[in-house]
């Protein structure tokens, strides 16, 4: 393959390995949990619980790495072998693209910033002690609010 038809190899190389590596770690965590469940120690093993918490954000990392793999990996094409990225761009002026990108970054920062804050706050407060249902039935965030009157969900 001629050089100009190749994607930036380093980005694809590492992104792919990060994605697959995290995938394998996830499988490993699943197997470890299974073994501990067998030995009836799943909810007691501190190290496994810590590892599970640590693995939490890695899912997002794997998704982004996978996305980098496909998007960078198919360069310089949009449709592999048929349509070059340069030829597939819309006739939109550069300032328009810059303005929309800036707007998206700002809106995403606000929305995700608040979202992550709420998520962490919910995790800190933990499952409600009054929640009915067994341990097999995880707490449904919406259903707990269904029973309360509108506008009083926060109390």
């Amino acid at each position, binding site marked *: 393959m001629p050089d100009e038809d190749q994607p930036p190899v380093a980005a694809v190389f590492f992104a792919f390995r990060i994605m697959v590596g995290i995938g394998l770690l996830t499988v490993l965590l699943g197997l470890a949990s299974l073994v501990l469940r067998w030995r009836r120690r799943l909810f007691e093993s501190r190290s496994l619980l810590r590892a599970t918490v640590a693995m939490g954000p890695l899912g997002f990392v794997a998704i982004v790495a996978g996305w980098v793999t496909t998007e960078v990996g198919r360069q310089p094409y949009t449709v592999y072998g048929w349509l070059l990225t340069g030829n597939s761009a819309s006739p939109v002026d550069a300032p328009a693209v810059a303005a929309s990108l800036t707007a998206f970054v700002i809106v995403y920062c606000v*929305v995700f910033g608040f979202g992550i804050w709420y998520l962490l706050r919910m995790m800190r407060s933990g499952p409600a002690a009054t929640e009915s249902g067994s341990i097999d039935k995880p707490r449904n965030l919406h259903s707990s609010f269904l029973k309360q009157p509108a506008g009083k*969900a926060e109390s």
Partner: protein
Amino acid sequence: MIDLPTVWACILAFAVLVYVVLDGFDLGIGIVFPLLGKEENRASAMNSVAPVWDGNETWLILGGGGLFAAFPLAYAVLMPALYAPMIAMILALIFRGVAFEYRWRDPAHRSFWDRGFHLGSLAATCSQGIVLGTIVQGIDVEGRAYVGGWWDWVSPFSVMCGIALTAGYGLLGTTWLVLKATGDLRERAYVLARVAGITTLVFIGVVSLWMPFLSPEIAARWFTFPQLVFVLPVPTLTAVLAGLLGWGLIARRDAVPFPASIGLFGLCFAGLGIGLYPFIVPGAISIQEAAAPDGSLRFMLVGALILLPMILAYTAYSYWIFRGKVDPDSGYH
């Protein structure tokens, strides 16, 4: 005459109309949100649409995705022309969408998210009106590409369409509240619906008189003799439904104004179709010219014919489950 592109144009027109009517009323609630008064009213209004609003927006995806798949040329020509209002609409919809969840999670910032809900709804509606106005008045096309700039959408007609659609969605939102709400919220909704109704009817008149001046072809459709007979039912029915809406709002029949408003939107949509057919990019590209190859259209039609009835069925089911007045004391959240 019924070829595959025409079938797909009908499917897309249907998706867009359903989107406009369904998301119209929940955007409308965002538009009048600051005028609803106390927190109980706001909570009730939000809860009246909370179970259905995100389902309503799936029709926008069908409209946009369908345009991309079935009429790629129209998509490629229209989207660059509509870049700014489209991006504004998407960002506004993100903001207003998360407000549904966040306002309950975070009472300390509730006024911030309420403002986000209101301004997001307003901006999304204005953008949609501007998009419609820009498409109707025509864009600069050479060959198979848009050749205008990214501010071409600014014109008196498109801005007027943005304001007109705000009034129209406001009407859908307030008549929905008339249908669903009780007590003080219902009283306020009646007052707001009367204002929105008069404003909407004035704008329907203005757009109807303005459109023929945009192009002689549109004028010919409406004002020459043989066609006149076929298009006359549209203004006649509009007058009938306007009367019905007025009666429902004055005689306080809760179930009348909302269906009458939907009917008015349907007729406006039919009027647009009469003015624009067979163009998908007015004055430049016809439905047939913009269509994907028949093989693609046939392939997608199979999926559409299976999925559309399913979507319609579960949509109808969810509205049926949440039918009747909203109980102010029991929230969706």
